[in-house]
């Protein structure tokens, strides 16, 4: 065996890669107008929020925790930014306020999980109500909109398109990359780099696999858990900002149910609900899969309620597909071990 083969295993790519490819190809083939620059743009822009949230969720899950308050935090931070804008505060400060409040709320989650020792599911489930309720109270349960003016210039800038490529005259042939999409991609890229190239990744895996091991290796469990929850809150506030800018107003219930979709995206992407396993790219691909399906179906003219049914079914099939890929990878691993003859 003198030559070094480059073995690319099936399991090197996150599971959701295959599901996404299948979904995307099917959508492109079956639904007319899906695979057009204009539509792809729309789909990607719609998926921004979920891509960020599933990134946050996947890190929580890998650490052996969960954050069910993501949706509530999106509502809360969105409301805070919007209400400040409405009251004439400069956009930069408003956004900063949103980010700070989101991060602080995330730290609160971390505190409840580590110091009060309440299980993550329960702690963030309760926190979700608190966050949403704060959003409702501040907004008086009404949609918030703001007037144009010099203070919202930043917001308008962020809402505009950075890059526009014309493949033709009609709207469907225009590829426009908005600042929001760019921000999303940059944020996710930064998180990925931090995850792979700093101790963030290994510590998260260690905490999720075995807390005792992590503790004995000198990893400060408390610091890291609070940190990841704070990061979650930070990402949620960015998502809140994106929603607000995209719809140019903010409904206080905008975050309703988002955390559940984030869990689904993350699990579809190979993250285990028990922790220790999974990846961030997997979760992002999971989010893209969900939005591909949703977008394709509504483009095809299918009623929202039918889309719900279809997504439910696809979820089940996606999980089954994951299993198949996993067991194939297991079998190949066994093969390899038998050949390699390890001690």
């Amino acid at each position, binding site marked *: 065996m003198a030559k070094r083969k480059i073995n690319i295993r099936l399991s090197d790519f996150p599971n959701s890669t295959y599901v996404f490819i299948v979904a995307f190809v099917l959508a492109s083939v079956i639904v007319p107008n899906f695979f057009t620059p204009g539509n792809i743009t729309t789909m990607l822009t719609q998926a921004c929020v979920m891509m960020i949230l599933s990134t946050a969720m996947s890190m929580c899950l890998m650490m052996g925790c969960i954050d069910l308050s993501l949706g509530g935090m999106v509502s809360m931070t969105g409301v805070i930014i919007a209400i400040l804008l409405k009251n004439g505060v400069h956009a930069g400060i408003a956004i900063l306020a949103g980010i700070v409040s989101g991060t602080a709320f995330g730290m609160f989650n971390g505190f409840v999980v580590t110091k009060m020792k309440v299980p993550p599911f329960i702690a963030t489930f309760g926190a979700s109500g608190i966050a949403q309720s704060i959003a409702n109270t501040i907004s008086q349960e009404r949609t918030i909109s703001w007037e144009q003016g010099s203070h919202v210039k930043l917001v308008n800038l962020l809402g505009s398109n950075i890059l526009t490529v014309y493949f033709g005259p009609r709207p469907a042939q225009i590829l426009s990359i908005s600042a929001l999409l760019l921000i999303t991609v940059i944020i996710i890229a930064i998180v990925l780099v931090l995850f792979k*190239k*700093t*101790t963030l990744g*290994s510590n998260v*895996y*260690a905490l999720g*696999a*075995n807390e*005792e*091991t*992590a*503790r*004995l*290796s*000198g*990893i400060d469990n408390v610091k890291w858990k609070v940190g990841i929850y704070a990061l979650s809150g930070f990402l949620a506030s960015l998502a809140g900002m994106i929603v607000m800018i995209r719809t140019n107003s903010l409904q206080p219930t905008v975050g309703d149910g988002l955390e559940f979709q984030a869990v689904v995206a993350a699990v579809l992407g190979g993250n285990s609900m028990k922790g*220790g*396993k999974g990846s961030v790219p997997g979760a992002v691909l999971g989010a893209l899969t969900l939005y591909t399906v949703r977008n394709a179906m509504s483009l095809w003219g299918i009623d929202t309620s039918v889309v719900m049914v279809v997504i439910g079914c696809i979820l089940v099939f996606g999980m089954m597909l994951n299993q198949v890929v996993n067991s194939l990878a297991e079998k190949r*691993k*066994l093969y*390899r*071990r038998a050949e390699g003859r*390890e*001690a």
Partner: protein
Amino acid sequence: MEKLLEFRNISKYFPGVKALDDVSFDLYPGEVHVIVGENGAGKSTLMKVLSGAYTADSGQVVLEGKPLEKNSPKISEEMGISMIYQELNLVPELSISSNVFLGHEIKKGIFVDKRAQKKRADELLKDVGIQVDSNTLVKNLGVGTQQMVEIIKALSKNAKIIVFDEPTSSLTESEIRELFRIIGLLKERGVGMFYISHRLEELFEIGNRVTVMRDGKHILTDEIKNLSMSQIIEGIAGRTIENLYPHTRKERGEVLFEIKNLCGEKFKNVSIKVHAGEIVGVSGLVGAGRTETVRAAFGIDKYLSGEVLVQGKKVPPGRPDLSAKMGLCLLPEDRKVEGLALSLNIRENSVISSLKLLYPRGIINDQLEQGQVEAFVDKLEIAASTQEKLTRFLSGGTQQKVVIAKWLMSKSRVFIFDEPTRGIDVGAKSSIYELMDQLVEDGAAILMISSDLPEVFGMSDRIVVMSGGELVGDVDKQETDQNAVLHLAFSNV
């Protein structure tokens, strides 16, 4: 030679219990100092004091002549003390090099220098003679290699003292050889080692000195060459254990249990017969397929072809509930995860397999239940507790007894024991052997998987050997010896 470490009059109290009582002994560089004692003797507590996980209530730990004023897991690590526990502290989804440097990564600013880590990890692996690439994920390694990773982890922190806690209980024979070879290397480099083990035979092979502890007290410390096995056993148990392996059996009856040509993913064509009143021991290296075979026979896993028969009747595959109904039972390797519900008490665990027998109509009767369980608690001498005690708080030996009680209550006839005395001290071991002997005397059939050759030879009537997933030997105990069995165990690897 200067002492590397000294325990001086260490005492530690917990509410109601004196865990360590004025313990003193020492360690020299390059020495393998074996520590033996029953569960609860204080060995782990003492090591936790050493590692800084616990603080002693009185006494001192003196490292290279200087008393350790403050201690914590981080401090002890910095001072060169490394602990290798039985439950390996590795992260399966990370590579060897990531695991080695977990918590003390080589950094460039905030970024981890993965290249430098890989280089160093590869060096360390080469140093101890292991041929694995340090980018391999730990989950893809065998248990023995994983343990080696723990050792180079310790070496990467320039450990002066390494504590091994039950290192060999899940290793194959060849992995144990590897481990001993590396320990030899460490000896040469002047690393001082504490080695805790229940496998008394290993003492003589690997140890320089031995310390016996009992009930939190230090009983004796001496060079191993000055002591005999029975002296050590006496020190541990505080009494002489004459016949560790009782053998009061008589002739065997008909075939109660038969595995016929069983084929599964990890085993092929396994055929074993067990008669009433007989114990068949199953020897072999870890990975030979023994546990996989019995799991498939009991129904936990599926098998590809073959048959399993109890009293001549076929056992439906893949249905442990039906196997149990037919009188077949399995006492699993990992009793905490597979044998008991730790959050429930002794009573609830004991009756769970005999609910139909106890309550034919399905309605619970507290008094009846308590009475029945009490009878078994007495019979098995689960003396140290009441029924209502949560099994999580019991010692390994007592937990195993509860698992046995569970199947006794269900009136099973065929018992499959998978490593019945792993991690159990000598005193409890002997009472479990007596139980097994009693079972076969009453006509049950026992199939016993064990990696403890003396145990296999002590308890079995017949010995069966598996190697590389196949059955390679089936002999009467009288017609073979430990060497022959070992040979067979290696024959198909």
